């Protein structure tokens, strides 16, 4: 029987109140959102916060809203909200690709976007997706808010730049024209963590034939900040051909550092990175070309 250790519990009705509670209780306090990452960790005693600060009552943190040039996602938006948000899928197909394979439909009703990011599990899918999209995170603390690149958000497995007196409140994704994106994952079964996964966002130029910019995210394979930086560097400015996309897969596989575990040996995971990176790039380019067709 798995039961969390003893813990105190507080409810916050606003961001200000949550920050005040974090300040009062110090590093032993932990924000509780959907709880679908944190509570399992508490049951295994891998997490033993002294105080939980439940933010589910902060209705103003659950939203998915486009502005003129960004998509803004409230930290308390549920995975199911993101999957149901047409505006998210229209601009960023990668998000719907990823959400379809995150956990299962019941868990997606409760797990939150912000909670997943702050849990910072190396196998968590959205971290790679947001890194590919070159998004940013808004973090509130006692001295106001700050914006951190998605690529600087994680400092290691289960570690982020969010301080013990701070909380993540929003994710921002830049809306750029002439782009396409995609995410693919290989897992043992539904609801399991990935063996490996890759996401790509490409922005095209020259009538869709050349890659102006690209973001490649990798999940669960030891990529620094969830990013395949060398493969991105290689692709930038090159023609979007089958050959260059396949080469980018090779480079991504070469530079990631997967470990061998019960989900598979490292060389198999490298193989997955090579193949999945090429596939998501192909799909992202093809989606980007379709978008261009519609716009012009």
């Amino acid at each position, binding site marked *: 029987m798995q039961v*969390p250790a*003893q813990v105190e*519990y507080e409810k916050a009705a606003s961001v200000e109140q949550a920050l005040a509670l974090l300040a009062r209780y110090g590093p032993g306090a932990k924000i509780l959102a959907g709880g679908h990452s944190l509570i*399992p960790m508490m049951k295994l005693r891998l997490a033993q916060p002294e105080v939980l600060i439940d933010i589910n009552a902060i209705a103003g943190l659950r939203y998915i809203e486009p502005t003129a040039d960004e998509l803004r996602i409230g930290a308390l938006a549920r995975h199911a909200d993101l999957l149901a948000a047409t505006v998210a899928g229209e601009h960023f197909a990668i998000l719907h690709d990823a959400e379809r394979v995150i956990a299962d439909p*019941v*868990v997606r009703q409760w797990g939150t976007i912000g909670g997943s990011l702050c849990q910072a599990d190396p196998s968590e899918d959205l971290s790679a997706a947001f890194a590919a999209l070159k998004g940013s995170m808004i973090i509130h603390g006692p001295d106001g808010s700050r914006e951190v690149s998605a690529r600087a958000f994680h400092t290691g497995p289960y570690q982020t730049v969010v301080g013990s007196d701070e909380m993540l409140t929003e994710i921002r994704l830049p809306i750029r024209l002439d782009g396409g994106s995609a995410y693919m994952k290989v897992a043992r079964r539904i609801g399991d963590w990935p063996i490996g996964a890759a996401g790509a966002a490409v922005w095209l130029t020259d009538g869709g034939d050349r890659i102006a910019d690209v973001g490649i995210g990798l999940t669960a394979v030891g990529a620094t900040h969830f990013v395949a930086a060398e493969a991105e560097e290689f692709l930038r400015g090159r023609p979007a051909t089958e050959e260059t996309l396949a080469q980018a897969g090779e480079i991504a596989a070469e530079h990631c550092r997967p470990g061998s575990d019960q989900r598979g040996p490292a060389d198999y995971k490298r193989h997955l990175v090579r193949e999945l990176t090429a596939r998501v790039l192909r799909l992202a380019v093809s989606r980007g070309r379709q978008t261009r067709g519609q716009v012009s």
Partner: protein
Amino acid sequence: MKITVTVNGTDYSRVVEPRLLLIHFLRDELRLTGSHWGCDTSNCGACVVWLDETPVKSCTVLAVMADGRRVTTIEGLPRNGALDPVQEAFAACHGLQCGFCTPGMIMTARWLLDQNPDPSTEEIREAISGQVCRCTGYENIVRSVRWAAKHDGRAGDRAGGDGA
């Protein structure tokens, strides 16, 4: 901590430890043993109940998180002594063998039909994909949900009702 949870339309106030999981609150404190405590790791879905209108694996929610909210369990599905059509369907189509996964399967299936009164077999499989039938009786579970969709006189009634 004192909490008040409305379970199947009845208010229950109890003093509980914040670490108490909702499934244990329902089964041990309220003696509502219809919801089953299965894998303990949010994988099997035997413990699915509704928190407000939304299904949740109740081994992954603290009872204190349900304070001031509504919970619906398998015991809350019959109305005026009549089984819910999904319950009837599981009986009619042999949708249960050992019965352990059944309460969770039925709560998710009822929710699916409330969202989508005529789901395809693919949509049904997707909806219960986070739930495990260890007898592997999935074919008959899917058949049961299809049967319920055909014989469901209550979808409209529910949409306008209190959802409890």
